[in-house]
């Protein structure tokens, strides 16, 4: 057991950590029950992401490399929903291909019960197709760009791609006008750079977790046209595309829920500096 704190500096550095969790829970729950509508500033990467989709000509083909995970869904759900709504609001042909084991479950549930492409006048097989999970990795991305049927001979329902009207003249990267790379592993941003941008100079936009954003930033705007990082930028794309979703509530709760952490960071640092410079307890 650690010794009981005696000085003021020790006391503020040893507050029971459960107060932090309790405060954070309370601050988080308030906006979930009653969203506050805190202001959101739209960042440059989000505008680039929006513009990349918005400037596509009618009839353009968009390939969505969908590597979503159920465990990380809350962080990216706003990105997915806003992006898919944007795609279906435009005259585009969309190929969703699943690169992670959870992706088919997520895409089928969200397209079926939330986005509902039929509400936008879109028909499966004519305006969009969903390809099943294949453990692609980077080599698979390269193969997909060279020969879609080589990697995905059938769609998610087992229908051969040759029998799907939309896929009639879509065989490889030459038919693709934009790649949307949705992923959860930070270094995966390098895959589309290496397999789509360098060899074929295809426009690419990416959507990833908040903590992976710093890995995507160096490639923007010269190698990727835009990026979404975490639920914060998911909220931004909801605002820019005028497709409200779960992002607004998420941003409010996040903004409030983080306050106790900031408070504890400050207290911890005051405690450390106090012990170091006032009572000279901390060894240099």
């Amino acid at each position, binding site marked *: 057991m650690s010794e009981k704190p005696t000085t003021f500096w020790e006391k503020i550095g040893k507050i029971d950590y459960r107060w932090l969790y309790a405060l954070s829970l309370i601050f988080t*729950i308030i906006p979930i029950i009653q969203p506050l509508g805190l202001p959101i500033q739209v960042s440059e990467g989000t505008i680039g992401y929006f513009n990349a989709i918005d400037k596509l000509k009618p009839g353009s083909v968009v390939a969505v490399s969908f590597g979503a995970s159920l465990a990380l869904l809350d962080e990216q759900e706003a990105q997915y929903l806003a992006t898919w709504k944007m795609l279906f609001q435009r005259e585009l042909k969309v190929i969703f291909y699943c690169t992670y084991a959870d992706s088919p479950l997520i895409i089928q549930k969200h397209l079926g019960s939330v986005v509902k492409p039929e509400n936008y006048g879109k028909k499966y097989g004519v305006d969009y197709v969903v390809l099943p999970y294949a453990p692609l990795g980077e080599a698979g991305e390269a193969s997909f760009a060279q020969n879609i049927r080589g990697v995905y001979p059938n769609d998610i329902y087992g229908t051969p791609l040759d029998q799907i009207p939309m896929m009639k003249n879509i065989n490889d990267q030459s038919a693709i006008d934009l790649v949307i790379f949705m992923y959860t592993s930070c270094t995966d941003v390098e895959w589309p750079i290496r397999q789509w941008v360098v060899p074929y100079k295809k426009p690419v936009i990416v959507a990833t977790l908040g*903590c992976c954003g710093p890995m995507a930033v160096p490639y923007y705007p010269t*190698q990727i046209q835009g990026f979404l990082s975490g639920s914060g930028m998911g909220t931004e794309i909801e605002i820019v595309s005028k497709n409200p979703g779960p992002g607004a509530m998420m941003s409010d709760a996040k903004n409030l829920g983080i306050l106790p952490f900031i408070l504890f960071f400050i207290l911890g640092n005051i405690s450390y500096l106090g012990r170091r410079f006032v009572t000279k307890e901390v060894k240099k």
Partner: protein
Amino acid sequence: MAAFIDILGGLVGTFFIISVLSMLWKDNPIFRIGQQAIIGATIAHYILLNFKSALNNAVLPMLSGNFWLFIPLFLGVLMYTRLKNEIAWIARYPTSVLVGIGTGVMIAGTMRGQIIDQMKNTVLDFSKSIASGDSMGIFNYLLIVIGVVTSISFFTFTREHKGLLGASAKIGRIFLMISLGANWSGELVWYLTQLIGRLSWIINTVIKTMLLGG
């Protein structure tokens, strides 16, 4: 009112979320039940999905005439030789194939996309900023150059960190701390988002929609 099976699913989900969150208070049997159930269910989920993937992408096409698919399937099976020490060496063959293909696929793109183009764009943007008199742009690119050089010098261990190298390494350490701090804060916000997502599900989906019929 939601169907009974939905309510049951919601309540079971809520139990597991709360059981995991109970760890914030202290280690307890409810947490361990939740933890083990979630790990078990997750493993079962991934085994099933990957089995189906292998079946649909390799086994069934092979049985219907694509005999060349036997090669990747066989290499995949060889991976399991790792489970027995006497024949574990066999697993090196499929591993070497994987590493070889992976390296071959990424090497060209890495040189061009991540090294040459990154350097080119940095230099071009820097020169553009100078030409246009964009002082903020110049400052940013100088910051990038100083950050890269000093951070690399921090990891130079072939010489003692004294004199110019020592000063550079000290500055590099500051850049590294800022970078790690930014990444860590991203992680923290990410965990918070997961918490918000689950709390939102309990409050809005389970309580408001399923139980109260809102």
